[in-house]
């Protein structure tokens, strides 16, 4: 029998999705539903002195902070209120929940609720946040968190360097851009329990948030994911969920809250804008002697997962290379912008934009090719990472570079470049797992049932295909056909809390838990539960496992308009053993397209705290005409501790696309250096084209 691991089995959820039968949150329609809208602040920064609620028609409700049992959303700092009560910190922050029999009524009531505001000066940029004269969002000031790490003797490393390059790099506020907007429905079931069904990455997280806000015991709440129409980090935490839950709790009626696209773009979570100063020192032969990074991130009005994003971004800055002297520092800053939080790549794309561009510039100046300089410095198992901890697990960067050097892409790039085309490449590294000091355990239950097995976990298939990959692992572990596994995911019922579906952790951690539980079943148990915890990183390191990708871009630049067209992106991935090759390709292609968007067109621009973008007509997501031919190969270097040798990879392909493209564009010009994305085409036009 063919090994199911490594086989491109068709996704088990695809037939229902192509039929239009898969049930997403907004497809759940219940009799007597109350539609939810939020009264949102028009000011970005203000003291909230009171709220005037107009007379309400029968059957309509308005709830404010005083109707909540507790008013905070659990997160790293838990400083975000469910409803603003004394202060407004971003434009669109909610201060009242409206529930009405139709969405139109709810919207119009929400618009008629008047907040009494004393408007404050807006903290509208990273520079504002650092400016002592600007108002502080919180008593502790506008520095939300900071990070510092020093390894070796960085100053000495730079002093001994033959070539030192530095630069200031910027990446934009980006939205996740899932096509299904944030959504939640809720109701009280026949046992009096509050049932919350939503588009989410974390069913237990939603349950805890709802329990805090409503005051219900956790045992009186059931939370589950419907089919999730994309998430990418932007549904990790509260979006619509708590508001629907509060309405059902206080009225006893079903409630439904679906974000409009404008709410999604303006008030949904974001990727952090970054401003990074980077400096790298090289020996004459190309060895990197020292690296330094200072990263500033705009987390908006609340921290959410921002502190972890900052730490991960810095850890990944130079992490793909073995460098003796590394200094990392940075600040996460509060501004009057909608909160940024997790987004696929989690700080790593921002860091790679800086490091990989400098590395390619150094290769040019030292007369080395872009593969050679990377092979010379590539990190290997057993070597210390940027903060000193030893990398104890497989690292396939060198093999990936070798494979890339044999690819058709690289041959074209080096031997037969097409006329007027530019080429570039870059390397991305991505950890999996939540990181040190964060509980990171997954629980799985396997139960025998007629003709097969039910496998249960609270982790969620958010569209990435974990249901299928985990079914493959379960089929292998139990030695049964794929079809004998009933994979049940995404509910708090009869499950222990396995945390968020995030950090590229599902395949690894849930896969291992499945294998453990399957052992007990094969020993004869009818039902077995097992858990797996992520091993902690050694030394100062934050993460334990890393996957790698080499990404090459081929571009054309219109000499008249300066517009960049990307013609081909080729990737080589190292993610341990591959469970499902076509699904791996799909993850790679999707991640590439997302970062291509960040490089060319996607950006939220704030003016006095208000975003200029309010729809998909002016926030430009890449279409099939913008995304070129995408190809992917993988090397397989199995990770012994992973499920059948696999490592996590869902975020990896977002990491190095921007520097690959900017390098390709710059290769067409004599003196052009691009440090900011999205690429400003007018900046290109002033440069002299190579002939």
């Amino acid at each position, binding site marked *: 029998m063919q090994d199911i691991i490594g086989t*491109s089995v*068709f*996704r088990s*959820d*695809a*037939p*229902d*999705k*192509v*039929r*239009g*039968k*898969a*049930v*997403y949150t*907004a*497809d759940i*329609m219940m009799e007597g539903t109350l539609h939810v809208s939020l009264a949102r602040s028009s000011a970005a920064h203000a003291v909230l002195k009171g709220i005037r609620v107009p007379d309400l028609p029968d059957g309509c409700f308005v709830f404010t902070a005083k109707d909540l049992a507790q008013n905070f959303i659990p997160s790293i700092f838990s400083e975000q209120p469910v409803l603003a009560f004394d202060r407004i910190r971003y434009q669109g922050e909610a201060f009242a929940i409206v529930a009405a029999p139709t969405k139109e009524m709810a919207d119009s009531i929400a618009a008629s609720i008047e907040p009494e505001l004393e408007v404050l000066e807006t903290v509208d940029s990273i520079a504002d946040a650092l400016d002592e004269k600007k108002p502080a969002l919180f008593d502790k000031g506008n520095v939300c968190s900071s990070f510092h790490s020093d390894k070796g003797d960085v100053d000495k490393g730079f002093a001994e360097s033959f070539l030192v390059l530095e630069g200031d790099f910027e990446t934009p506020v980006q939205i*996740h*851009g*899932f*096509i*299904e*907007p944030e959504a939640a429905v809720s109701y009280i079931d026949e046992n009096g329990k509050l049932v919350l069904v939503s588009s989410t990455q974390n069913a237990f997280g939603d349950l805890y948030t709802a329990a805090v806000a409503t005051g219900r015991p956790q045992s009186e709440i059931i939370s589950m994911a419907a*089919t*999730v*129409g*994309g*998430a*990418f980090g932007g549904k990790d935490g509260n979006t619509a969920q708590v508001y629907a839950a509060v309405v059902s709790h206080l009225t006893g009626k079903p409630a439904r809250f679906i974000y*409009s*696209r404008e709410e999604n773009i303006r008030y949904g979570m974001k990727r952090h804008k970054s401003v990074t100063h980077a400096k790298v020192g090289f020996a004459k032969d190309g060895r990197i002697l020292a690296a330094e990074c200072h990263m500033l991130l705009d987390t908006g009005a609340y921290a959410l997962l921002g502190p972890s994003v900052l730490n991960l971004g810095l850890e990944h800055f130079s992490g793909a290379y073995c460098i003796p002297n590394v200094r990392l520092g940075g600040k996460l800053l509060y501004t009057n912008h909608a909160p940024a939080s997790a987004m696929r790549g989690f700080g790593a794309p921002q860091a790679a934009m800086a490091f990989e561009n400098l590395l390619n510039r150094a290769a040019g100046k030292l007369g080395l090719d872009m593969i050679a300089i990377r092979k010379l410095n590539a990190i290997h198992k057993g070597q210390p990472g940027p903060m000193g901890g030893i990398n104890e697990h497989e690292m396939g960067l060198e093999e990936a570079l070798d494979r890339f050097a044999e690819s058709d892409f690289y041959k074209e790039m080096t031997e037969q470049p097409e006329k007027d085309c530019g080429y570039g490449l870059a390397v991305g590294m991505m950890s999996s797992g939540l990181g040190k000091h964060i509980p990171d355990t997954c629980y799985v239950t396997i139960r025998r049932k007629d003709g097969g097995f039910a496998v249960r976990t609270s982790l969620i298939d*958010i*569209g*990435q*295909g974990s249901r299928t990959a985990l079914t493959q692992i379960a089929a292998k572990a139990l030695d049964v056909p794929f079809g004998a596994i009933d994979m049940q995911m995404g509910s708090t019922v009869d499950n222990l809390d396995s945390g968020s579906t995030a950090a590229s952790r599902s395949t690894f951690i849930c896969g291992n838990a499945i294998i453990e539980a399957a052992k007990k079943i094969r020993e004869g148990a009818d039902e077995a539960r097992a858990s797996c915890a992520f091993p902690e990183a050694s030394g100062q390191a934050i993460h334990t496992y890393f996957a790698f990708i080499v990404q090459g871009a081929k571009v054309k630049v219109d000499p008249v308009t300066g517009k960049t067209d990307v013609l081909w992106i080729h990737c080589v991935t190292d993610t341990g053993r591959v469970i499902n090759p*076509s*699904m791996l*390709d*799909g993850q*790679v*292609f*999707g*991640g*590439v*397209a*997302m970062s291509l968007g960040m490089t060319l067109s996607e950006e939220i621009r704030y003016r006095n705290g208000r975003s200029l973008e309010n*729809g*998909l*007509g002016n926030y430009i*997501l890449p*279409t*099939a*005409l913008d*995304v070129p*031919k*995408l190809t992917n190969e993988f090397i397989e270097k199995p990770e012994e501790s992973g499920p059948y040798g696999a490592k996590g990879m869902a975020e990896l392909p977002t990491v190095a696309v921007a520097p690959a493209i900017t390098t390709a564009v710059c290769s067409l010009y004599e003196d052009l250096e691009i440090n900011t994305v999205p690429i400003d085409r007018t900046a290109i036009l002033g440069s002299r084209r190579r002939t």
Partner: protein
Amino acid sequence: MKNINCIVNGEKVSRNIPDDMSLLTFLREELGLTGTKQGCGSGDCGACTVIVDGKSVDSCIYPAVLADGRDILTIEGLEKNGELDRIQKAFVEHAAVQCGFCTPGMIMSAYALLQDNPNPTEDEVRRAISGNICRCTGYQQIVDAVLSLNM
């Protein structure tokens, strides 16, 4: 309120509807055909694509009253006797589906293309689906799926 009579997925339908109702709301809320999705409500994402008299339209900005007397095909109408249509099959087999939220609209755009042009080039496929945004797939496997249907 207006009365409209139309054919949806081969069946006659008659309803009284508010003048300002969109075809998308009509399909989802009046007829319970929730396979057609709303991603933006403003004609920018294509998730709501259905076929009206052989042409693909964004049903979120198409007034339902204009559907009077017309023939409408939605994702639910593609399957015949429990068998997936060949486009649906190709999407499954080419891993062209991830979260699936863009999928019904994407398939309807592919359907409209293949009706007019049974042997499209890659460029024609990309153009035909350029009004359908997919955030998950990077489009490659969707394009592969549609091209696999060339005769």
